[in-house]
């Protein structure tokens, strides 16, 4: 037997390619995907067809244009599409920085499928959901320890919705003090998530965006210049997307408080901080955690999710209703909150994700949570040193250690080779890895943001680093291979014509495609820019 050579540093990968049709193309008249519970004969006898009572104008005319497909073919179709999706269970998902793509424990998925969780109606008598309310309450207690806040709501369905809820609380708070109209500005920073600015704007606020100083810290002088009697609030992440921790954060919150504003903390990603530093000590009035990030609930292709919203005592009555209370060994839902903003999401939020986060915290304990933070920071700084050694890569701003993530730049490589960060995105696919550029605007040129979390081993990190090294090498030696990527993915590079941005050409549904694919189109078309909010 000869030794089989396994010394390649990058993975010899090819993603599944099934070239499935669109589901409508699987239509086979007469086939059936599932049998429904039938109507009882006596019921039918008693009430007739059930349909003729519907007023003529409200009766559905004609047959629905849905396909008819046998069950096995439907299953096979979707299983194939699932294979063409690179979930975080399958890859070393370091490339989606800021989103804390960590290991999703299987035990938690098993627990949420318990019928005593899955088959609960949100309006059941409280006596019959004591277990569920207990989980909400116990997670609340853990979150209080982690943040120093006094009370948590799990109603918001994502970080963005939690940010919106916080902006709503800011407005209601100032209104309750007769300053609702006067305080019409919210201050944020450019290295914070776009939703901070976007949700505050929906709530009617004028947005003031602070840019960083030379070292990448939010500029305290700019903050001093920005605050006034119009300041309603200040929202920021710390560390921001750069992974740089702002050590003067307490001075920031003091400045805003002195001006009469509230401070709210975007802790969507708090992975490097667990057990080390908290919202309370930094002077924040509110914070939120994404349970689908730091707390290991899955991202599910983009939700459902939970933005756990914590507040200090004086803001508790502003929370969306209901909230869970614990008294004399009984759990209850409290709807009567004097200043409540109302609702942001129906009923109680995404309960199964609340359960997942609670299970994850209990699997780690206080010490384990601290280990999570420590190893996330260790992994990140290891990658940081390795990535900086790659030709054409850099990390702008302050030198020294970063916390859980780093925003890097390929600016030099792009200048020298023409290969952009978007090209790298597609080429990384060829090695079975996901890579994300970064949020707009690209303040850091040709950006990419890596966040290795605690979940990956040194070997995993090295695999990711080797892939980046390989692509840099290719960019300098054979840039075409990167520019024309992907080569080993499910599909090839998409046609770069304006198929997605031209109203005559975009097809958001199959029926539109069938119509537009044959139709002539006029070109060019200029879309209107944004108008009102």
């Amino acid at each position, binding site marked *: 037997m000869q030794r089989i050579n396994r010394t390649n540093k990058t993975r010899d990968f090819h993603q599944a390619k099934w070239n499935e049709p669109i589901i409508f193309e699987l239509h086979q008249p007469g086939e059936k995907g599932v049998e429904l519970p039938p109507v009882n004969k006596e019921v039918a006898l008693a009430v007739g067809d059930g349909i003729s009572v519907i007023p003529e104008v409200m009766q559905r005319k004609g047959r629905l244009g849905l396909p008819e497909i046998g069950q096995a073919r439907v299953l096979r179709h979707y299983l194939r599409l699932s294979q063409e999706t690179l979930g975080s269970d399958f890859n070393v998902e370091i490339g989606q920085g800021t989103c804390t793509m960590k290991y999703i424990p299987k035990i938690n998925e098993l627990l949420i499928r318990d019928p005593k969780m899955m088959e609960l109606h949100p*309006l059941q008598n409280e006596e019959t959901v004591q277990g569920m309310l207990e989980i909400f309450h116990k997670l609340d207690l853990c979150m209080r320890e982690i943040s120093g806040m006094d009370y948590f709501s799990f109603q918001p369905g994502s970080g963005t919705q939690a940010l919106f809820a916080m902006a709503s609380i800011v407005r209601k708070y100032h209104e309750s003090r007769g300053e609702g109209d006067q305080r019409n500005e919210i201050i944020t920073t450019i290295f914070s998530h776009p939703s901070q600015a976007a949700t505050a704007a929906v709530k*009617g606020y004028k947005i003031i965006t602070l840019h960083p100083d030379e070292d990448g810290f939010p500029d305290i002088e700019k903050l001093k210049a920005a605050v006034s009697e119009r300041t309603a609030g200040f929202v920021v992440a710390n560390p921001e997307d750069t992974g*740089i921790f702002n050590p003067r954060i307490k001075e920031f919150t003091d400045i805003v408080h002195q001006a009469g504003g509230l401070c709210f903390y975007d802790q969507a990603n708090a992975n490097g901080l667990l057990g080390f530093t908290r919202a309370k000590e930094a002077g924040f009035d509110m914070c939120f955690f994404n349970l689908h990030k730091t707390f290991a609930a899955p991202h599910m292709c983009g939700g459902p999710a939970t933005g756990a919203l914590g507040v200090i005592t004086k803001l508790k009555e502003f929370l969306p209703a209901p909230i869970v209370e614990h008294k004399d060994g009984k759990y209850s839902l409290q709807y009567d909150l004097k200043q409540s903003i109302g609702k942001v999401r*129906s009923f109680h939020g995404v309960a199964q994700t609340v359960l997942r986060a609670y299970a994850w915290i209990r699997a780690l304990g206080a010490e384990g949570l601290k280990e999570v933070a420590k190893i996330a920071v260790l992994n990140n700084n290891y990658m940081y040193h390795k990535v900086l050694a790659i030709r054409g890569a850099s990390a702008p701003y302050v030198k020294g250690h970063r916390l859980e993530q780093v925003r890097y730049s390929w600016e030099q490589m792009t200048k020298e080779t023409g290969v952009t960060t978007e090209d790298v995105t597609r080429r990384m696919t060829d090695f079975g890895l996901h890579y994300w550029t970064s949020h707009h605007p690209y303040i850091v040129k040709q950006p990419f943001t890596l966040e290795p979390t605690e979940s990956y081993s040194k070997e995993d990190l090295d695999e990711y680093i080797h892939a980046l090294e390989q692509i840099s090498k290719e960019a300098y030696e054979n840039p075409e291979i990167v520019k024309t990527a992907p080569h080993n993915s499910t599909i090839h590079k998409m046609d770069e014509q304006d198929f997605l941005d031209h109203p005559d050409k975009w097809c*958001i549904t199959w029926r539109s495609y069938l119509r537009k694919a044959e139709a002539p189109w006029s070109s060019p078309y200029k879309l209107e820019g944004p108008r009102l909010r």
Partner: protein
Amino acid sequence: MVQKVHPYIPNMVPKVQEEMLKVIGAKNIMELYSCIPDELKLKENMNIPPALTEYELRRHIEGILNKNTSTKEYLNFLGAGCWQHFIPAVCDEINQRSEFLTAYAGEPYEDHGRFHALFEYQSLVAELVDMDVVNVPTFDWGQAAATSIRMAARITGKKKVLLTKSTAPERRDIMINYGTPDLQFEFVQFDVKTGAMDLKDLEAKLTEDVAALYFENPSYLGFIEEQGPEISKLLKNNQSLMVVGVDPISLGVLAPPSHYGADIICGDLQPLGMHMNFSGGQAGFIATRDEVKFVQEFPSRLFGIVPTVKEGEYGFGDVYYDRTSFALREEGKESVGTQTALWGITAGVYLALLGPDGMYEVGQTIMQNSQYAVQQLNQIPNITGSCLNSPFFKEFIIDLNHTGLSVEELNKRLLEKKIFGGKDLSREFPEFGQSALYCVTEVHTKEDIDYLVQSIKEVIEK
């Protein structure tokens, strides 16, 4: 003692840590935290119980969950925004797939399947509502409605929104919080005998500054609003848009709102294959015509189909990405982020399995079962099975005013008989007095309904 390495944290292995620290040039991990000043460092340990092993965790959580009683154990007649329906096993099989469960923001290349499945979901729901554009789903019906009316306000350049008073109170609260302070809200009366919208009141309130009217059909209270065409005419004459919320499982038998003049349709996908999950199954959709003035106002992602450089391949990407807050921060349309994509995929699977006949059948069975329940309830003295005398879908109001019983008392007694009675409306809709909103679907057998009727009868006669 050797330090315990947690199964979720491979690099807790001391030897590996040493190697990594060497690369970094740090003595220990705490050195990496030197950026956090002492006054911000947490001094005490967090008061969180010590770690549980996987087996202990399972015992612990199952112990807590055992305190719940689910709709598998008791008969459930609660709806009111979250409904119990039959869920095909294939729906669960697909949404529990590791690939879909753990995917997130992958590009159209490594996540081709995710884009493909969501494009199909958009296309399948489009058939249901007979519209050409459907979004990647938002949080829930309430959010879909809230965004729909904001879209309408941007399209018309007007700021006032009319809601019917029969709008679901939760959705109303979500819309008002989401709309203020930009939008002003006014309420249109409805007839308490039929549920029908009061068109005179609508006309009176339909001033020039009205961007849109929002109503639900079937309504929160279950009745079917049949004045769609008349309402649409009034709105068109006023250059106001018609926004209609709809339960998609009704659309095999009920006309979609686009057939009676809706400009924007929204609703909840939960009935299409999602378990109730104590409200974790909600997902909102929005549908419009394929006109630039509508498409450019969506805050949501919209996936479109495109060719690739290779003949015969379907590709997918974001349509008109530059509308979104991802591209433009506060200058984008509202905001976008993680919402409920997995439930969109699941709703697509559900619709593909049911097909046109299945959607008709499920709608018809719901109509028949719920009508049967009302018919039987009407035979109980002093009870009115449906206090509105108009056709309804799935939900109806039981009137207890002549029984001397409150809904709260009845529900307590029904609970003893292992029944979750309907939602108490006495606070939300005091005009109906002691009344409850009941939900009967295709999952209820004749025996289930008979047992409910018998149980209510026993409680009342006692």
